[in-house]
């Protein structure tokens, strides 16, 4: 590596990281509680327990649950119906004033056996909501998401240039060597280089999947344009239905269409994952990978008949597979703790990098020979 190419890479590393560091520190700090959002929700008492009752016989009808939710929140329309993995006997229906609302959401948690309302967890408030919004879009909606996506891309550039620069710095050092006795500066540099190279794979994966996630809203919009518009073409000029067919009957149609899959979630007519004329019923597999890959079944919301069902396009498969790799929620509690420790190591790498720049900025060495010696040292 020539001196000039080292200088170019150093320039790339310095500026790509300087621009994104503050945002990355914010993302690492807000991401830390988000890793444990489930556990924190439990500690804060937001978790709604399923009552122990002696229940035999079939589960409650989807229609009964919908009626119960609408009675609880009159004047609101249902958006999505889903359940948490650890509460298989609950269904959650999210609601808002309109299907296109961007705030004012409510959630109604129902007992899947009896269709009884179990509670309404707080939405859009509290510590975790603030952490979530700061992490996802800085309270700025789509522009905020795309901005953080761009910062994530700069982090990727910083990681790659950091790996390139690792070589010239390590020419005379053994792997893992931290020069502790030769001043704070060298120690800080060695810690930055060592921790940075050690967590390389994890940092690359989390940064890259974060960038993909930042595009999620646009990918869904593209899917609507690319696939949904073809699937619902026959309904193009029809007015939206005023009366809706049974949700339970629609679900049975979807189950019959995909007999080997199970229900993942339901998107109600008018939401981003359905059409104004359809229930979007998203079926999933049950292996570790296929349980994350949904297959949409569009059921006519007026007649409860099948309209279309097709596999997700590659870009949505990429999005759905990238999500667990970003959240670290796919390997139990051990993996969550590993994610947290790696996140803290990332904070140390970011902080030492920032301090290296800050201290160097304040250091002026008038003697040219001393300057050369110092810059050779790091």
């Amino acid at each position, binding site marked *: 590596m020539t001196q000039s190419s080292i200088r170019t890479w150093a320039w790339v590393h310095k500026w790509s990281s300087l621009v994104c560091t503050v945002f990355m520190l914010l993302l690492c700090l807000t991401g830390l509680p988000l890793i444990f959002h489930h556990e924190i929700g439990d500690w804060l008492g937001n978790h709604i327990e399923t009552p122990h009752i002696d229940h035999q016989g079939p589960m409650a009808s989807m229609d009964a649950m919908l009626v119960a939710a609408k009675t609880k929140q009159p004047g609101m329309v249902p958006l999505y119906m889903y359940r948490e993995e650890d509460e298989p006997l609950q269904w959650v229906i999210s609601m808002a004033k309109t299907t296109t609302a961007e705030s004012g959401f409510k959630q109604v948690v129902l007992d899947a056996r009896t269709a009884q309302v179990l509670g309404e967890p707080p939405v859009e408030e509290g510590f975790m909501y603030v952490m979530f919004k700061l992490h996802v879009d800085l309270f700025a909606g789509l522009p905020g998401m795309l901005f953080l996506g761009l910062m994530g891309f700069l982090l990727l550039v910083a990681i790659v240039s950091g790996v390139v620069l*690792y*070589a010239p710095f*390590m*020419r*005379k*050092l*053994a*792997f*893992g060597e*931290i020069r*502790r006795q030769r001043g704070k500066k060298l120690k800080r540099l060695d*810690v930055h280089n*060592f*921790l940075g*190279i*050690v*967590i*390389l*794979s*994890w940092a690359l*994966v989390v940064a890259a999947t974060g960038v993909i996630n930042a595009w999620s809203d646009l990918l869904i919009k593209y899917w609507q344009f690319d696939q949904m518009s073809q699937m619902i073409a026959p309904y193009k000029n029809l007015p939206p239905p005023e009366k809706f067919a049974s949700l339970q009957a629609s679900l049975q149609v979807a189950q019959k269409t995909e007999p080997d899959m199970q229900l993942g979630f339901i998107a109600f007519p008018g939401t981003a994952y359905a059409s104004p004329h359809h229930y979007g019923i998203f079926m999933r597999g049950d*292996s*570790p*990978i296929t349980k994350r890959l949904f297959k949409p079944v569009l059921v006519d919301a007026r007649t409860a008949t099948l309209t279309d069902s097709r596999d997700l396009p590659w870009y949505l498969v990429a999005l759905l*597979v990238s999500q*667990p*790799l970003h959240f670290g929620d*796919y*390997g*139990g509690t*051990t*993996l969550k703790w*590993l994610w947290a*420790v*790696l996140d803290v*190591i990332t904070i140390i790498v970011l902080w030492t990098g920032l301090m290296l720049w800050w201290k160097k900025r304040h250091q002026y060495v008038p003697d040219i020979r001393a300057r050369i010696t110092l810059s050779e040292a790091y």
Partner: protein
Amino acid sequence: MVTHLFMPNKQLSQIFFWPLIIALVSMAGLIFALVVDDARECLANAAIAIPVLVAIFFYWIRPLFSRR
């Protein structure tokens, strides 16, 4: 006989040998954890834990033995 007063320049392959091994093992762990849902998950978690263990070893444990 002393052959080098200072450590000689290392080759790229020497510089990146351990980082590459750690990167490959932890990457394999990250992907493996995604496709298994049983006891093999422990294996995947162990692979993902390697960077953390290496960091702990070189930062805290090794200095305890190499103090002069």
